[in-house]
Structures are given as C-alpha cells and as structure tokens.
C-alpha cells in the first residue's frame, strides 16, 4: 500500500491541547458522537463536577456531506432530493422550502390543487416529526412505551405517503412547480380516517401515559429555562421559541401555500422549560390535524404541476423560509442566470438551536442534559448538511 503523507498544517489554526485543570475535581467527558441519547451524531465535550455540568461544548460535523457545495454543480430539479436529506425526519418541509425559493425566482405559479396537497403532506409530515420528537424524548427519559407508540402512528403516516410518492422517508414528492403526482379520493378518505383516529384516540393515550406522569413532570418542569430574550437573541425558532412564550409562527407571519385560509391556533408555552417545549409539540400535532381536515374539505380538482420552463434561467437572490417542525427552515438562494445555483445556503433550525446547549445547561445534571437535547429536537442531517 502506498504511504500517505499527512496534510500540511494550516497556518491559521492553533491546535491547542485540551487544558485539564488538575487542581479541581472537574472531569472532562466526551458524550458521543455515538451515543443513544444524543439524537444523532453529536459530540458533547462536557466538563463535569461530579454529576453537575460546568460547561458543555457541542462538536458537530460528523454528518457533513457538502450539500451546499454539491448544489453549485446540480441543476435545480436535481437538488430537490438533496434537500430531503437535510432534515430527513421532515423531508416534505425541506423540499417545500427549496421549491418555494426557486418558484419565487422563476415567478412560477403553483396550481391550487398542488397547494392543497402540499399543505396536507406538510402537516402530515409535521405530525410524523413531532411523533419522533415525542417518542425519542420520552424514551431518553426512560419511558420506552412512548417510543413504540410513536412508531405505530408514524407507520400509518408513512404508509399513506408511500402510496403517493413511493418512498417511506425521503419522499421527493414536493417538486418545483407543484407536486409529483395526483392522489385518489380514496387516499383522501383514508387520510381523514387516520387524522380522526389520531385526535380522538391516540393523542389522549399519549397524554394519559406521559404528560401527567409525576416522574416525567419532575424530570422536565423547571429544567433548562430559556428566557424569551435569550431565545430571540440566539435566533431560536419553532417550538423552542414558542415554548419560551414568544408567539411567532411563520405560517401566520409569512404565510405560504395558501395556509392563511386555514383556522388554527399557535400553542405557546409560559416558562420556557423542557416541559413547555414538549407540550408545545404535543399541542401542535392537534393543530396540524385541524389544518389537514380543513384542507381535505376544501381541496379542489385540477392540475398538480405548473408548466416548467424549457430552459432554466434562474436569476436573482431570495431568502424563503417556512415553519418546519423543528423551527425556521430557510433557503437562501443566489442564482446567476444559469440552470445551477451560484450559492445555496440552508438555514437549519437545529444548527441554531444547538448553540443554546451551553447557554441553558450550566449547573444541570447529566441526565438533565439528555432532556435538554431531546427538548431542542435536533436532526443532524440539517445541522451538518
């Protein structure tokens, strides 16, 4: 085998050995990157004093796949499957964000039936993503039954979406100009049946099992409080921001896909602790179900795809953002008049939320750190891209 020479040292990088303060009793522990409770490949370099955390430094980049660099060499329709893989638990929302950005630059108008289908699949995907947030979060705290409940419901949603798109997780269904294909009336009826059953039967099961559970409440109430000023200053969005009491939902502030027609509430927490962020996600699942029911009633007949240009000349610059289940998913797109982007930057909500871990977890127990990560609900596909 040929020997490889080590890469030349970068002149501007100081590789500093980790300073071990041997005079104190602090222990330097690396939690991850392979760890069952870090929700993915996250390495937390924690300095702990006994069981209490003194400082945490998150180390990311283990899932970096150079999405932004690749997208400079791919045509716009070719980028859509890559966006799926950013937040792979909420693929539809990512595709939607990217499609909206390109449609804005091209001036494309999406037909109304496609808007309804986008809304239905987007809210189904939101329920699916919050189910994972609920299931994995509860399991990290020890409630393994909740984990199995989440997959039972998610299996129903995935089966529905597999019928229309062919895939179980990375759907490639929402495309630039509309959606991939039309759905049958029978499918719409089954979505309605699922949503009705979810609201009347399944969600109350979760609340009975987890929400009122004394152990769960003791492990989550008052832990890792994030004040609204901190949340805004650090750029938090989604359930993390709403759990701290700031009523900001991009579906109300900057509506897209006709979502302003639907009547739904925005649940907001009071204290900004782990319990409030969890509760916001549970209530949001109910609101999503409401939106799906309204969309199913109002859906019109028609085309599902706009007429796409023969030659793609995308010029201009835009920043389009949607309310994903994790927060504000943004696509900053700079086009240079050709059929490939000049610069595509993906604003991932989990990336911004991971900055908060050192801010809110000083002085907590290690077990609480697990609750904190679960309540921020990161997905490493979008953190690292």
């Amino acid at each position, binding site marked *: *085998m040929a020997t490889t020479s080590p890469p030349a040292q*970068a002149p501007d990088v100081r590789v500093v050995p980790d300073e071990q303060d041997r005079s104190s009793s602090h222990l330097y522990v690396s939690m991850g990157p392979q760890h069952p409770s870090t929700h993915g490949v996250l390495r937390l370099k924690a300095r702990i004093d006994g069981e209490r955390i003194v400082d945490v430094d998150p180390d990311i*980049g283990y899932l970096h796949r150079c999405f932004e660099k690749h997208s400079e060499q791919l045509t716009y329709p070719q980028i859509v499957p890559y966006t799926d893989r950013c937040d792979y638990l909420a693929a539809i929302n990512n595709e939607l964000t990217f499609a909206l950005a390109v449609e804005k630059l091209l001036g494309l108008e999406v037909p109304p039936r496609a808007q309804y289908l986008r809304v239905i699949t987007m809210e189904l995907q939101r329920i699916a993503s919050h189910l994972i947030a609920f299931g994995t979060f509860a399991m990290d705290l020890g409630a393994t039954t909740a984990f199995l409940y989440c997959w039972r419901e998610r299996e129903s949603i995935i089966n529905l979406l597999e019928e229309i798109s062919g895939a179980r997780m990375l759907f490639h269904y929402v495309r630039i100009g509309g959606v991939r294909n039309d759905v049958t009336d029978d499918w719409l009826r089954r979505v309605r049946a699922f949503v009705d059953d979810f609201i009347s039967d399944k969600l109350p099961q979760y609340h009975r099992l987890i929400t009122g559970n004394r152990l769960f409440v003791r492990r989550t109430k008052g832990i890792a409080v994030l004040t609204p000023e901190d949340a805004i200053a650090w750029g938090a969005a989604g359930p993390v921001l709403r759990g701290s009491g700031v009523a900001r939902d991009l579906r109300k502030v900057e509506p897209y896909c006709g979502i302003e027609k639907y009547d739904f509430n925005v649940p907001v927490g009071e204290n900004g602790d782990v319990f409030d962020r969890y509760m916001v996600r549970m209530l949001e699942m109910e609101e999503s179900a409401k939106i799906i029911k309204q969309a199913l009633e109002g859906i019109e007949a028609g085309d599902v795809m706009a007429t796409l240009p023969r030659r793609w000349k995308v*010029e201009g610059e835009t920043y389009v953002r949607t309310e994903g289940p994790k927060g504000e998913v943004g696509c900053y797109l700079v086009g240079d008049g050709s059929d490939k982007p*000049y610069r595509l930057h993906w604003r991932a909500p989990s990336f911004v939320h991971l*900055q908060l871990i050192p801010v809110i977890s000083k002085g907590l127990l290690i077990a609480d750190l697990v609750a904190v990560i679960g309540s921020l609900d990161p997905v490493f596909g979008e953190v690292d891209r």
Partner: protein
Amino acid sequence: MADEEKELQSQEAPAEGSRGEHGEKQRPARRTRTPKKEEAPGPHDTLEDLPGELARAVERIRAGLPGVEVRGRRDHWLEIRTEPSRWVEVATFLRDDPELRFDYLALLTGIDRLDDGFEVVVHLNALTSNLRLILRTQVPREEPVCPTLTGVWPGANWHEREAYDLLGIRFEGHPDLRRILLKEDWVGHPLRKDYIDRRPPRKIQVKADWERRA
C-alpha cells in the same frame, strides 16, 4: 424591439410561383429571431414606492445612519449595504433603535464573489413590527476580515464559525473562532470557488479470500 417587428412585417410576400435568381422558390422571409420576452422583475429588484411602514423605516434608517445606502426590495425586505468599518455601528443602531428594533438574526452567511472578494449577508427580523432587513458588506479576497456580530446578536456565533470554516472569512472579536463542520486540522476552505481538494488519494487494495490465501 418594436421596430424589429415592423421591419420583419414590412417585407412583403413575393408573388406566387416566382423564382429567385438561382431558380429557388421564393418564400416569405421567416423571423430569424424570436423577440425577447420582457424580463420580469425579480424579488431582489428595488421597489420604488414602498408601503407605509417600509417607507417610514427607510426614513428612520437614513436619519440615524447617514451615508449608508438603504433600499426597499420587491419582496418587501429592506436592504442595507455598508463597509466593514461601520458594520458593528450599523448593527447596533438597528438593534437598539426603539422604532426599528431588529432583535432577531435569522441568518448570517458568506458568498464567494471571485474578484469582488467575499460578501457577508445577514438577514434580520424585527419581531414586533415584522420588518425584514438584509445587511450586506464586502470584504477583499486577500484579507477577508470582518468584525463580529456576536456582541450585538449572540446567535451569530455559529453562523460566523461556519462562514469561517467553509469560506475563510475571519471575524474579528469572535469569542471562539474555530472550525465547526470540518475537522480541526483541515486545510483550505471548501466552499470557495477556487478550492481544490489536495488530500492525497488513498489506495486501498481489496483482495478476495482465495487471492490472499494463494
């Protein structure tokens, strides 16, 4: 464009059955060029008459920050372009002004503009008034240094680390500027347009079981 069309229309069709000088059949002249469609304005183009609150915001920015160019875009975002020397001053004014109150930093990113250096773009939001603003600056390629915004919005921390990691823009005053997505000892900044991967190729020999035993 209108006179091209008139020119083409004024060429009359030749008489039926007539032949040209080489004996070819005469046909009416075809349009050699389809006329260009009007370029539709994009969302980034300037909007001349701004709606009420955007116009007031522009006035306030012009009053509070003399010499800074501000415009309103068609997609209802304001845009400010400034130099790195005034970066923190402009940012602090935008955050602290009681009527503007841009308290939310949505995005900070960099773009490689080749000969024009690097562009640092910041997207800001005012949560109370729903105003939206883009703040841009340009730093030269040979010395890509820009002051940090972590003192104004702490949320800029990891965004600036990523811009440093992938593009090489150094942020002066950043509390912890080091690579975030790539390994600490990586050489180069991959998102630059002139980045070449200089890692030596790995030669891995895959042998089947029977080949190894022989």
